[in-house]
């Protein structure tokens, strides 16, 4: 590769669009974008704001948009781009800018608190047993390093086209890690439907594409969660049962609203979102209360 790389780094103060500054950086073998940012900080602009920690794709701090793609800077190699062409580096556009490449991601930490934490069974840990394969579903989601790139790319969040509650991919993944924990006792379906707005996800899989941990966010987390929610709220038998029993949301959900199942993955995304919109607005106000919890 060339011995120099050209970077256009988008810099700016809080809430500004920012402007691109050009830096020419010496490029050694195996250098990643974060190395180039560090070189700029150490040699040209000590105040260039950027987050990083492990530089090994394990902490998820150095998220940015490199040539427009949400990426970890520590994992994106300069040699992946054509020689001589400038590489653009911008902050994650879904979150408000603090300064330069640093954004305010505090919203994520607030959303996280809405999710019912791990709820263990009522028997001592010494008796807990599960097989490796039974834990692996949860483990896939627990690989998440909270880089928030999935949140950055998710168009429901990114376009701010909504004013409803929406957990976003990271927190569907967290919910899935708990729901699919071999021993977790909580029921988060109501939370996912009302607080989480899971119906609004129209499974474009953009989140899966950018996940540096290669978690199959859409296929393995969101779609199964949608199915659980659909089974709970849109299964005609359960719907009837709630009607008779007079459950909390028993009479408000429209059974014909959305039908999310294996087949739904193939449905037209837009149509599904519209359907979700309908059902979402017909529900009563969101609640973080749990459903019946199994003992």
């Amino acid at each position, binding site marked *: 590769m060339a011995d120099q790389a050209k970077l256009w780094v988008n810099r700016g103060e809080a809430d500004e669009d920012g402007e691109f500054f050009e830096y020419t950086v010496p490029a*050694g*073998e*195996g250098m990643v974008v974060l190395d180039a940012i560090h070189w700029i900080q150490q040699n040209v602009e*000590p105040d260039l704001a950027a987050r990083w920690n492990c530089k090994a794709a394990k902490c998820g701090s150095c998220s940015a948009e490199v040539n427009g793609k949400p990426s970890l800077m520590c994992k994106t190699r300069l040699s992946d781009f054509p020689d001589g062409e400038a590489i653009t580096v911008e902050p994650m556009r879904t979150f408000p800018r*603090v300064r330069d490449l640093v954004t305010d991601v505090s919203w994520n930490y607030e959303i996280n608190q809405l999710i019912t*934490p791990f709820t263990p069974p009522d028997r001592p840990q010494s008796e807990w047993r599960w097989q*490796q394969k039974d*834990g692996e579903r949860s*483990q896939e989601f627990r690989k998440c390093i909270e880089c928030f790139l999935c949140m950055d790319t998710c168009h429901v969040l990114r376009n701010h086209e909504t004013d409803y509650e929406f957990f976003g991919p990271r927190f569907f993944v967290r919910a899935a890690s708990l729901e699919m924990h071999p021993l977790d006792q909580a029921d988060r379906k109501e939370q996912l439907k009302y607080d989480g707005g899971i119906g609004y996800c129209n499974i474009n899989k953009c989140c899966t594409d950018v996940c540096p941990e290669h978690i199959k966010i859409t296929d393995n987390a969101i779609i199964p969660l949608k199915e659980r929610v659909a089974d709970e709220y849109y299964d005609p038998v359960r719907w009837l049962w709630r009607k008779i029993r007079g459950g909390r949301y028993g009479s408000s959900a429209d059974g014909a609203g959305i039908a999310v199942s294996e087949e739904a993955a193939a449905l037209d995304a837009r149509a599904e979102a519209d359907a979700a919109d309908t059902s979402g607005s017909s529900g009563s106000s969101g609640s973080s209360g749990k459903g019946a919890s199994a003992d």
Partner: protein
Amino acid sequence: MIETRPHDVLIIGAGGAGLRAAVACIQAGLSVGVVCKSLLGKAHTVMAEGGMAASLAHVDDRDGWSTHFRDTMVGGYRLNNPRMAELHAKEAPERVRELEEWGAVFDRTRDGRILQRPFGGHTYPRLAHVGDRTGLELIRTLQDRSVAVGAQVYQEVIITRLSMKRGRVNGAIGYRRLDGVPMAFPAKAVVLASGGVGRAFAVTSNSWESSGDGHALAYRAGAELIDMEFVQFHPTGMVHPAGVKGLLVTEAVRGEGGILRNADGERFMWRYLPEARRDEYAATDEEARAWVDDLTEGRQSSHRRPPELSTRDNVARAIYTEVKEGRGSPHGGVFLDISYLPAERVRTKLPSMYEQFKELADVDITAGPMEVGPTMHYIMGGIRVEADMGATTTPGLFAAGEVAAGLHGSNRLGGNSLTDLLVFGRRAGEAAAEAAASAKAVEEFSKRFVDESVKAMFAPFERESGEDPNRLHEELQATMSSLVGIFREESDLREAIERIEGYKERWHGLRITGPRRFNPGWDLIFELRSMLTVSEAIARSALEREESRGAHSRLDFVGMRDEWDTVNVTTARDGEAMKVERKPVAELPAELAEHVQTAVKA
């Protein structure tokens, strides 16, 4: 002008130790503030890969706390604080089980219990793990737990000074990186859980956060540091390409059967096993292979472990020596090979190593060897603490985790640090809570203290001219890596101390431009002050200890010396100077001594 956040207990650091301490304080019913330099969940704990050592005896039923205690003491060449090693060995299993109760999803044995893997210096497979991302599991579990129980976390805050009143620590002051606003945290007790010092070295597995802030804050408050000469170089860091030099390659690669070879293809670790412990290791390639096969099949092995599972100090020196004597790999390391195992096994047990090499070095570790070499990884030394409560020598100040010292002696065994965080994080949290509960109301800081501290914070912006902190940082790193590295000698150490004295002078003239809002150059100035303090303590302690033991190797004093068997080197502030003293090692009680039967010397 300044934001004030009073709490019963202030915890500085949100890695494993800090978060575990926070949970303990909250369970005691107190108000807890946790400050961290990064976002919550990004602390260096996240980088821990291989596992956490606890004698659960799920894989080998011969294991128990006394064997773990013995391994820790022998691995640390008996400079460890025996009470800490005892508490750690006894309580680690309970802390691991507790993590599972809080939602951690460990890998499983065939009978469905927490799986354990072998690691260097541990007699039996002992490390509870999740593939090779155990640290992430630990921190996420504690993060979720501490938030669920109600810890107040102040993210991205740099602490510049501890506050003292009548000889007691009563809080800390600093600034929020996000907007540069000064913040005061008055408290009844403070727990330091700020991690290590790796950033003082050029080649390190540590992140930017590991700048020894806690060590330096405690030192300036008058607390004593101990064992600072013992700096662990992890044997296996990446050496190529240059951009990833120093990045950690987990010991789990060797735990799962990885073989080290030099450029001649020789399995050189056979030559470096200490005579006194040689019979703990396999005698032949065949026996080592049989041990790996048993492990892979999930069987309790009657064979002895491979030579690559010697202690870290020994393996690091072996690799360094091979390279120095001309038998290194093309990029100045040695070869570490796990590709003889089935590819699926490697990808399942070492997923993040597989990714790391594939994406950052274009190497497929299921198809060929990795190139690895030593990287600065951990400091055994730190703040001297009382074993049971983590109390420092300064009232009101507690410490736990890497910033505290004593458990690991002169060399830490892999896997012992994660359980260190849990066992002593909890203990320090409980002790701080107790101290806080018996204290009077939280006191506001005096105006003079606040004014002085804030003025000092902003001083680097006020200077008309001055040096860029990055230059000083580069020089310090070069000095520490070249003169205070794996092998040391008097002339180098004296040279290092002289240079550090010069750096300390230059520190007062550092200047930063730009805004206060998220300015990394500004942060570096305060971190550099911490790095200079710990670097001086390391160099002075290394000069004082005239022998080679554990992670401290003197070219001019080869081998262990009897007269140093019972001596810890301590450093403490004496006015503006650093006082170095020799103090007796905590006594090994007779009932514990019988557990440490293996001779540590030839």
